[in-house]
């Protein structure tokens, strides 16, 4: 029987959890964009369930890569071959699509970053540090407050002809400034366009500070769906800003590419734990270790009464159980 072989990339972020399947040649076969809603484990399971229905029984996953803030968790649940940070994953995906790309603007749910590449190599990057103003969560919140669906936000912003000036330095002040501007009687599109400009200014002043932004520029991450923000970037930078086709799942795509590269280089068999994990019962719990004065917060992930992994301890007292052989034993016991 002929089976299709795929690489799976998973990006578990604060707001969205994305899945990407690529075939052996690296073509994107399927992608999935789910809301994490603060429940990463359930969302990963839900995604796997969806994928299983789509690709059915004749598919085989031959490599898995995870990225995003919950990459370790995802790696444990899925059995990943490559675990990489978001910056590398985004850079790999972008330069694979266009090797000449020199700047990546990425705005996600709770963080935003800028990545500079020269000749296909990351030479510099920055992430927002303490402030969430200008990230996806903030836009979500404001759209909800104004009673407009987030998908409409950008379209409405594009209709603004005289964007109002909004203090974008801090999300709390931006909100009160917006309310003030509404009460003065400015139109909704003008306020939204103003908000887009404020966000872009804030991004360029904080994350993009001291960075040499050269084209081609890619704009990716969930917020790239918003044409208002994209236009604001183009106006501010005086350059064309490209939103790649799969902008919302670029992290996952990068992770899938990384899994593919590893497979091609080393040809190892995958640690993937099977599509059936969507039916398993996973539980997480945490406790403070009382072993010494460090009092590490240890997190434990369990699947059907079996401990999959623990982390958070500094000394390795708790995390040693997560050796590969033990994981495999657990998988076998749970009937892969």
């Amino acid at each position: 029987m002929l089976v299709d072989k795929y690489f799976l990339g998973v990006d578990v972020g604060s707001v969205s959890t994305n899945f990407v399947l690529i075939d052996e040649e690296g073509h994107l076969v399927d992608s999935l964009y789910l809301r994490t809603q603060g429940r990463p484990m359930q969302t990963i399971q839900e995604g796997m369930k969806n994928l299983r229905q789509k690709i059915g029984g004749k598919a085989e996953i031959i490599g898995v890569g995870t990225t995003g803030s919950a990459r370790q968790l995802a790696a444990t649940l899925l059995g990943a071959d490559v675990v990489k940070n978001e910056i590398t994953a985004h850079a790999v995906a972008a330069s694979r699509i266009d090797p000449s790309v020199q700047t990546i603007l990425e705005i996600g749910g709770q963080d935003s970053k800028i990545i500079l590449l020269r000749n296909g190599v990351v030479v510099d990057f920055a992430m927002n540090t303490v402030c969430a103003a200008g990230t996806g969560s903030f836009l979500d919140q404001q759209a909800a407050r104004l009673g407009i669906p987030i998908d409409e936000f950008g379209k409405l912003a594009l209709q603004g002809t005289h964007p109002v000036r909004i203090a974008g330095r801090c999300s709390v002040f931006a909100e009160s400034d917006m309310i003030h501007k509404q009460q003065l009687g400015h139109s909704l599109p003008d306020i939204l366009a103003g908000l887009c400009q404020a966000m872009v200014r804030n991004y360029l002043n904080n994350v993009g500070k001291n960075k040499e932004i050269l084209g081609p520029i890619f704009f990716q991450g969930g917020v790239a769906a918003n044409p208002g923000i994209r236009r604001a970037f183009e106006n501010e930078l005086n350059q064309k800003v490209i939103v790649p086709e799969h902008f919302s799942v670029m992290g996952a795509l990068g992770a899938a590419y990384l899994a593919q590269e590893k497979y091609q280089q080393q040809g190892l068999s995958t640690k993937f734990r099977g599509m059936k994990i969507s039916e398993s019962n996973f539980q997480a719990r945490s406790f403070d270790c009382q072993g010494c004065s460090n009092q590490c917060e240890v997190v434990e992930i369990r699947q059907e009464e079996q401990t999959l992994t623990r982390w958070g301890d500094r000394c390795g007292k708790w995390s040693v159980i997560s050796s590969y052989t033990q994981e495999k034993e657990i998988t076998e016991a749970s009937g892969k």
Partner: protein
Amino acid sequence: MKVTFPHMGNAWIVIQTLLECLNVDYVTPPPNSKETLNIGTQLAPESACLPLKLNLGNFVQGAALGADTALITGGVGPCRFGYYGELEKQILQEAGYDFDVITLEPPDGSILGLLQRIRKLAGPKNNWRKITQALLFAYRKSVALDRIENTFHGYRPLVPDSNRVDQLYDEARMNLLQAMSEQGITEVLNWLSDKIQEEKVCSYGENYRDKKNTLRVGVVGEIYTVLEPYVSMEIEKELGNLGVLVDRSIYLSGWVGQHVFRGLAQGYKPIKPYYSLAKPYLNHFVGGHAMETVGAAVKYAQEGYDGLVQLLPLGCMPEIVAASILPKVQEDYGIPIMTLTVDEHTGKAGVLTRVEAFVDLLERSRIYKDHKEGVLELAGR
């Protein structure tokens, strides 16, 4: 009088030795933890930098163990740390802790003033000969301690078992803590180098990595942030575990020698050479360690290091000056520099993500330089 003191990395081992040699009654506060920081954050003004908050937490935790006097070093120049001794005394008194604070610093640059403070700490029982001996011994121990730390920075990236390295490091520090003679210190250093040699051959064998292939990263920045692992999120250890050879620009003995004893002692990794190296970029003192940071960055760049990490606490003026100069060094020498700012809101996950991405960046650009391959051929490594 029962003395307590703030934590700064391994400094407690040296301070404890000094106080023991002088027969001063003391308590060592528990190591920095979430609780220490919570106490400090409640007492300190919100905009104060992280060291002040942790110092206060240390003193309160020391007070719970019976301490009534705080020992702290001071500084000269525009860094806020210089008046933390006074500030901490007032904050503690307002919070109801009747603390006396002894600030070890040369007030207005006067060595005589420093001696008077040492006399106050040592009490009338000790004569100057004994005090000098105690200071010298503590200083030698400090140099040995710095040497041990540096040894581990070089050793960690080469071995696969990071937990074993942690154990060995703890063992070495405890042995040094107990050494109470010059000979004892030498024995600890010899024991460590034998032990490392033995484990290299017996435990790791072929798994022992080749030093030639490791990336080299220099760590520069504000001394407290660099030295105290709780604050730096153990960045040196994390880099080491990722297979990176770390070299740190400043060590305790070098700093104490230059700043408290006005250059009378040079310590391990003397910081004096940094001043002339910093000259083309920053030619006068702006407080704190800005000149050391810039000078060290130039030194590492000239020595062909792969990258640099600068660490500073949020709101640290001298380091902000340095941070705005470093891009020039980066440009002149083509060395990637990452600046990390930490405060009580910093999460370890965010720091780790940046560190990982930085190491990827260095690895890929190095291989690119060697083989002229693109990033794609390197994926998955």
